C-alpha cells in the first residue's frame, strides 16, 4: 500500500542507511561526472592517486611537469593522477501490474523502499540521482540531479507511483538508454517476467551507451516456492486471463521454468558485465541491499 505524502520519508530505510552509509557505493566502470566525487573518471585529474608518466608535448600545462625527473634525466615528463568524479545513478522502476503481487508487502512497495534508500545513499555521497517510472500509460522521468531537494522529488514521485497495466519494461528500457545521455549507473527494479532475449537486447542497448547496469529482480516468496494445498484458479494480474490447475502437479515444472528464466537473465548479465541481484520481498531492506553494498565498496 502506498504511503501518505507526509510519510514518504519512510521509503528511506534508516536501518539500511546505517548499515550501508559508512562506505561510498562505487561503480565498476569509470563515470563522467561534472564535479569531484568518489568514482573513477575516464579523465586524469588532481587526486592523490598516481596514474602514469607521460612525455610532455608543447602546449600542455607545465604545472603537471615532474621537475625531479627533469633534473635527473633532462627530459620533460608529465606526472598524471587519477581523476575522481561523481556519478549519475539513474533508477528505473517497473510499475507494471505484475509488481502489485506480494504479501504482506507488494513487490512495488518493496522496490520503492529500495529506491528511496539508495536515493538517499547516493545523494549523501554527492552523486546525482534520477528516476524513471516504467508505466503503461506514461513514462515519468526525473533527470539525475545532485541537489538535496532531489530526494524529496524522488520520494514524492515514488509515493504517487501505482502498479498497473502490461509490462512495458523492455520498450521503456530502450527509451531510457536513449534519453540518459552521459554515462550513468542504471539501477533497474523489476520482476523481469518478460522474454529473456528481449530483456537481453535492452541490457545490451544500455551497455552500448556505456551505462553500468544493475538489475534488482524482485520476487515474492510464494512465486519462488509455489506451495498451494488445493486446486487453484490463477488470475493474471496483467492480462486478466485465468488458469485452473492442481498446483502440486505442475509445481516441479513451474519451478523448472522459473529457474531457466532466471538463469538466462543471469547469463546475459554476465555477458554484459552487469550485476544481477535477486531480492525476496520478505527480507529486510538492509539485508537485501547489504550484498549490493558489499560489492560496491570493494573497489
Amino acid at each position, binding site marked *: 500500500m502506498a504511503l501518505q505524502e507526509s510519510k514518504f520519508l519512510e521509503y528511506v530505510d534508516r536501518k539500511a542507511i546505517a548499515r550501508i552509509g559508512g562506505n561510498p557505493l562505487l561503480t565498476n566502470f569509470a563515470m563522467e561526472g561534472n564535479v569531484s566525487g568518489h568514482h573513477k573518471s575516464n579523465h586524469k585529474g588532481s587526486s592523490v592517486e598516481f596514474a602514469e608518466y607521460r612525455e610532455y608535448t608543447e602546449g600542455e600545462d607545465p604545472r603537471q611537469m615532474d621537475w625531479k625527473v627533469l633534473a635527473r634525466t633532462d627530459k620533460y615528463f608529465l606526472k598524471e593522477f587519477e581523476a575522481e568524479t561523481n556519478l549519475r545513478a539513474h533508477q528505473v522502476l517497473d510499475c507494471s501490474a505484475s509488481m502489485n503481487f506480494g504479501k504482506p508487502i507488494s513487490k512495488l512497495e518493496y522496490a520503492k523502499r529500495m529506491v528511496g534508500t539508495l536515493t538517499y545513499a547516493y545523494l549523501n555521497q554527492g552523486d546525482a540521482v534520477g528516476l524513471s517510472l516504467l508505466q503503461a500509460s506514461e513514462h515519468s522521468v526525473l533527470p539525475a540531479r545532485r541537489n538535496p531537494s532531489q530526494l524529496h522529488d524522488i520520494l514524492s514521485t515514488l509515493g504517487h507511483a501505482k502498479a498497473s497495466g502490461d509490462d512495458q519494461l523492455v520498450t521503456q528500457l530502450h527509451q531510457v538508454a536513449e534519453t540518459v545521455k552521459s554515462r550513468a549507473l542504471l539501477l533497474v527494479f523489476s520482476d523481469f517476467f518478460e522474454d529473456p532475449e528481449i530483456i537481453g537486447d535492452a541490457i545490451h542497448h544500455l551497455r552500448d551507451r556505456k551505462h553500468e547496469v544493475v538489475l534488482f529482480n524482485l*520476487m515474492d516468496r510464494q512465486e519462488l516456492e509455489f506451495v498451494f494445498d488445493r486446486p487453484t484458479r490463477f*488470475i493474471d*494480474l*496483467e492480462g486478466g486471463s485465468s488458469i485452473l490447475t*492442481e498446483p502440486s502437479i505442475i*509445481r516441479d515444472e513451474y519451478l523448472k521454468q522459473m529457474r531457466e528464466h532466471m538463469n538466462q537473465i543471469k547469463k546475459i548479465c554476465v555477458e554484459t558485465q552487469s550485476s544481477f541481484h*535477486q531480492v525476496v520481498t520478505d527480507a529486510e531492506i538492509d539485508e537485501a541491499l547489504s550484498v549490493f553494498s558489499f560489492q560496491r565498496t570493494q573497489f
Partner: protein
Amino acid sequence: MSFLQPIALAGIILAATPILIHLLNLMRHRRESWAAMRFLLKAKKSSSRMSKIRRWLTLLLRMLSICSLVILFARPISVGNQSFLDLATKEPELVLLILDRSSSMQKKSADSSKTLLQEGLEKFSLLSKSWPNSKIAVMETLFAEPIFLDKFETIYSKEMQGFIGPTDSGANLPETINRSLTWLNEAEIGQAEILVISDQQEASWQINENSEILKSINETINNKQGLWQLGFLDLKPTKAINYSIHCKSYLEEAGTANPTLLIKGNQRDQERLAVRIRINGDLLLMNCEFTYPSTTWTPSIPLTGHPPVGWISITLPEDSFPGDNEYYFTYGNQSILKIGIAIKDSETERFVVAASSLDPDRTLLSKNLFSKQQDPSEHDLLIIQKDLTKEDLGFLDQFLLKGGMVVLFPSAKTNNENVKLQTWSTNETKSQDDFFTLREWNKNEGVFANTTNGKELPLSYLKIHQRVIPQLGQPLAFYADGQSFLTRKIYGQGVLYSFSTLPNLDWSSLGEGFVFVPVIQRIIDECRQKSDFEFIECGDNNSLSLNSALSILGEKQDKPSAQDGIYKDLGKLFAVNRPAGETVDNLIVKNKLQDIVCTEHASWNDAQTATSSFKRAEIWNFFLILMIIFLLLEGALSIPQLTKLLGNSRV
C-alpha cells in the same frame, strides 16, 4: 475366502472417497491473483504425462488402501489348505459341534467372565460363520443324538436349552466322538468340520478305559484323508476360589444321618466353611474346618422331628463355581420294597403272602391293592390274580411303562380284558392222577437259575393239573410239551412275569414252595435292584430312566438326567447328584491324548487364539499389511516431490 462380518463390506463404497474428495477439491478451488503467469502457462503446457499417471496412481492407491481397511474390518477368513487368494468356495457339507455338557463346563473361563460352555459356543459361532452355506449339527455328550440347526443362533433359543444348555451330568467324550463319526458315516457326509468343545477334564476322557475307542477315532479320521477335520478347542477354567463337595458314603442310625463327605478346595489356606444343611427345607447351619487340598467331613444330621422319609441337601458357601457346592440325599425307609397284592384265590394269596414275607424288615406287603384306601402307584411290585377291570388295566399299563414290576397269575377272565398285557390260552385240566411236567428251563440266569451252591431248582418234580399258557413274553421254563410255564415280558420300562398255573393244590404242587418261594424271592430281588437308586448320578442310566420324575427343589422342567436335585417318582424320593468325576479338577495332559489321536487331520486350538488358528484362519493381518504397503507406495509417490520442494525452496 469368506467373511465373519460381511456387513462391513458395505463400507467398500468408501473406496470412492478419494475420487470424491478430488472432484470436490476441483469444484471448491481457490482464486489467486498471480504475476508469474508465463511460467504457469508453460508449466501446465509441458506438465509431463508422468505427473498425470502419478496423480491417478495416487488416487488408485488410496482407494486400494480403503478397500483393504474395509476388508480387514469384515474379518476375512481362509481355509487352511486353501490359498486365501483362491476365492472359490470349498465349504464343508457339515459343521459338527461336539459339545461337552458336563457340569464342569459351567465354570467361569480363565479368559473372560463367561462360562466355558458360553465361550465354547461363541467360538463355534465364529467358526460356523466361516461357512455360511454349510449345515450345522450339534452332538452333545448327554443324549449323544445329532441335532440339526437351521442357523447357529437357534442354539440360544429357549427350546434348545434342554439339548444344549448346562447340565450337572458327566461326559464321555471318546464315546460321543465315536458316535458322531459313526453317524457321519451313516449319513454319508462328504466333507465335514468337527469341533470338540470341552474343558478336557480327565474324567470326560478316561483315556485308559477308552483307549480302543480313541484308536478307532484316529483310524476313522485318517481313513477320510482330510475330508473330515477334527478340531479340539481347549477351554481353560478360572483358578478363582472354588470348593466342591461329594459324598463317599452314607449311614443312617439312631435318628441321625451321617454322610461322609469329601470337600475339596483350591485355596492353600485353612478355613472354616459355613455349611448350610436343609432337611426337608428346614435350615441347619454347621461349620466345617477345611484344610487344603481336601477334607473328609462326617456331620451328624439329626432327623428327629422330621418325617420318616425325606431329603437332605448340604450346601457349601458360594464361590466362583456354585455348581459343585451342593449335595443331595434321601433318608428313611426307602429301601423297604412295597409289594401290593390283589389275589382273588385265597389259597394262592396265602402262598404268595408266605413267599413274599420272608424278609419282613425289607418288604412291606399290602393287600386289597385296588381298594380306595391305597394308592397302587406307590408300590414297587404288584402280584395280581383277579379279574381286572378296564381301569385296573389302564393303571397297570402306566405302572409298567414307568418301570414297575408285575407278576400275573391266571384268573377266570384272563382271556378277555387283559389282552393288552398278556394273551392267555384256554384252561387245560388233567385228571387227578395225571399232570403236566416241566422239562426245560434256564439254569444259568433268571428266576430259575441254579442256587449259589450249584443245585438245581426242583422244577421237574412239579405236578401241574391245570394250566393257562401265557402267550406273550420270553418263556423261562417249558412244559414237556413245549408250552411256556413262566414268561417274562419287557413292557415299557417295566417287567411283566406271567405264571401259567396257581400255587393251589387244585392247580399244581407249586404251593409246596420248593420252586415258588425262590422264584418269588428272586423276582423281589430283581425289583429291589431296579428301584435301588440311592446314589443316582446325573446322566447315568438310572437318571435317564427317571424321565417322568418331578423335581422337588428345582424347576418343573428339570430332569434327573440333566439337573441334580431331589426328585419324586412313583411316590419315591430320589437324590440325583453330579458325577464324582466332575469334582476332580485334573485336566487332561494334552500330550497323552495327542499320542493316541495323532492324525494330521486333528488339531488342538487354544480358546484365546482359536479364531486365528483354526484350519480356517482369519487373514486380516494380510490385509493390514496390504493396506500399509499401499499407503507406503502412496507416500513414496509424494516423497520425491517433497525432496524437490525442500531443495528448491530457497532460490
